[in-house]
């Protein structure tokens, strides 16, 4: 089936070339970082994780969100998702690929990456995270590819995939729970040391991932013959709405605990992120954009009247995605490091090199996604099933 990726129109090839060039620039930037060390990034002794680990954290959520299509389709026999489940599974493949690349580019000694396997250390959450992420990547490649192959042959998927599909559901929950545990089990970082972290991660994942899916599906409809159908998109929109409500609710719970308890350590990171401390507030504008976007998106999502109009829904989804990207792909990780353990502030901002590497990884992810989507759509074009009947 992969040969389908080699035959495409002008738009397809332009996209491929653009993404490949960004990926190439990212690779060159990475080689520079490889030779000169992580000192070329904005990270420091105090803020020892930055953009890479935040992107990783955010993308684990996007990957996990495939389950929001798998559950209705396979567990509740919600046929209307038939056309888009594969989009979710392939998005998961692309996202986990990016996650792994982000971990890789963040390592000080990347050539020793196998040490995680050679010296397995079950007490380290990172060990478990590597395990579940690899498993999830494997599951989604196998499930996505096999079901598409069966579809091509116009046969039902082989019976052995069913258990794998069911397995992928708790597995999706596990990748994000374990990723939350990376943070939530560390003593002394009050911003992260919260039992609701995993729940928050899942809520934001189930809002951000499906929001991206809606955006992608509508882009596909615009530029290809693919049509996800109106009803399925509205159904995903509902998922985004509920999950985004839960996510905002969870954040407000954190704010209450921090400020009503009045415990300094619990308040400091919030203060740094939203008002700044002692004149340090590089993230303040971004965090407020995140808040404002979240509020507007909820206003657009909650009343069905507004949400039912597709043009509104897509705008709301863009807002949700940006809001969550700032919150999780930036604020969450950096906020945990500021102020530092001595109560002083060292700020962080990504350098140009770091940004180019980050964009490069995203480009590789989207390249993977483009190719996988191209294959899926071509298969259906041949079968004449590219349009949803809903």
């Amino acid at each position, binding site marked *: 089936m992969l040969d389908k990726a080699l035959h495409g129109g002008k738009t397809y090839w332009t996209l491929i070339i653009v993404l490949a060039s960004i990926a190439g620039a990212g690779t060159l930037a990475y080689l520079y970082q490889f030779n*000169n*060390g*992580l*000192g070329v990034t*904005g*990270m*420091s*002794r*105090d803020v*020892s*994780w930055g953009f890479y680990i935040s992107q990783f954290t955010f993308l684990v959520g996007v990957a996990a969100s495939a389950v929001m299509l798998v559950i209705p389709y396979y567990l509740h026999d919600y046929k209307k998702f038939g056309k888009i489940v594969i989009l979710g599974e392939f998005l998961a493949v692309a996202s986990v690929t990016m996650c792994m690349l982000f*971990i890789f580019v*963040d*390592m*000080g*000694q*990347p050539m*020793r*990456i196998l*040490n*995680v396997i*050679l*010296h397995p*250390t079950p*007490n*380290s*959450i*990172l*060990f478990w995270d*590597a395990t579940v992420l690899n498993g999830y990547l494997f599951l989604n490649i196998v499930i996505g590819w096999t079901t598409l192959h069966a579809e091509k042959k116009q046969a039902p998927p082989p019976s052995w995939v069913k258990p794998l599909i069911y397995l992928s559901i708790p597995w999706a929950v596990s990748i994000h729970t374990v990723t939350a545990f*990376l943070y939530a*089990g*560390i*003593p*002394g*970082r009050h911003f992260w040391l919260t039992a609701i972290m995993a729940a928050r991660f899942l809520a934001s994942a189930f809002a951000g991932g499906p929001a991206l899916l809606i955006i992608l599906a509508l882009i596909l409809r615009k530029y290809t013959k693919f049509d996800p159908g109106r009803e399925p998109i509205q159904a995903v929109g509902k998922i985004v709405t509920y999950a985004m409500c839960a996510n905002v609710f969870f954040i407000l719970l954190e704010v209450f605990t921090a400020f009503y308890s009045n415990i300094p350590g619990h308040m400091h990171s919030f203060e740094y992120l939203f008002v700044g401390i002692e004149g340090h507030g590089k993230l303040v504008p971004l965090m407020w954009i995140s808040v404002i976007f979240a509020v507007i998106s909820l206003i657009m999502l909650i009343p069905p009247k507004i949400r039912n109009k597709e043009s509104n829904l897509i705008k709301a989804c863009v807002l949700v995605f940006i809001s969550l990207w700032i919150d999780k792909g930036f604020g969450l990780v950096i906020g*945990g*490091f500021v102020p*530092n*353990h*001595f*109560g*002083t502030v*060292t700020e962080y901002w990504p350098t140009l090199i770091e940004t180019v590497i980050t964009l490069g990884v995203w480009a590789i992810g989207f390249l993977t996604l483009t190719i996988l989507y191209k294959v899926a759509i071509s298969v259906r074009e041949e079968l004449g099933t590219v349009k949803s009947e809903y």
Partner: protein
Amino acid sequence: MSINRRKFLKIAGLTGLGLSLSARDFILMSPAEASGGHSLPSSGERLGMAIDVRKLTDADYARIADACHTVHNVPTLIPEKNNVKNEVKWIWTDTYNHTFPEQINDYHPEALRNKTFPLLCNHCDKPPCVRVCPTKATFRAKNGMIVQDPHRCIGCRFCMAGCPYGSRSFNWVDPRPYIPKRNPDFPTRTIGVVEKCTFCPERLARGQQPACVEVSNGAMIFGNLADSHSEIRNILSTHFTLRRKPTLGTMPSVFYIIGGEDYAG
């Protein structure tokens, strides 16, 4: 924890905490093995340090940090040289409020508030850095030392996120050009690995005291917390001492004698 201490120290000293160390047997979460735990260790060896800050001046601190950093080939990536971001340090000083942020009190004697305190790895009894390390590059030796194997470290910096004391430094840049005078008896580190105070196993193996202790004019006392007759136990049982951030349950092995009435005048 099967490494025999003498053998371990010998290897650590000779090959520079090298590859030959196997930490595979360290089941770090086993409470039975983690000597000490929440009660006083009664047998074996449990290394610790008491620091009598009453006796230490800024000149002493400079000498102490210098002794440690010189003997351990710690690069001079220091704030004074505009290198805050890439800073590497094993022992340094900070104010009272930054050292004991859980014990801030605006009514403390001014002398205390203006005093500086030496900071180094606490060689915690329940070390979060060890708990989070995915490769066992950071592990706990039987005597309580928290050891770092720079040849195994993948540079993920999970341990830096995990350590609540800011004790760990990452080599953001190649440290070697920044070593003023290389000590041939101690290994240098490469780019991309984490390092910190080691409690000087290479010196203990030669029967010496840690470098900082040696030049502290008796203000720093190093010894075996498991031995109720040791000098350090004697000091601890006769002085009021503080540990950094005790509420986190890490059980630091570095104790501070801050004095009390001495500052009142």
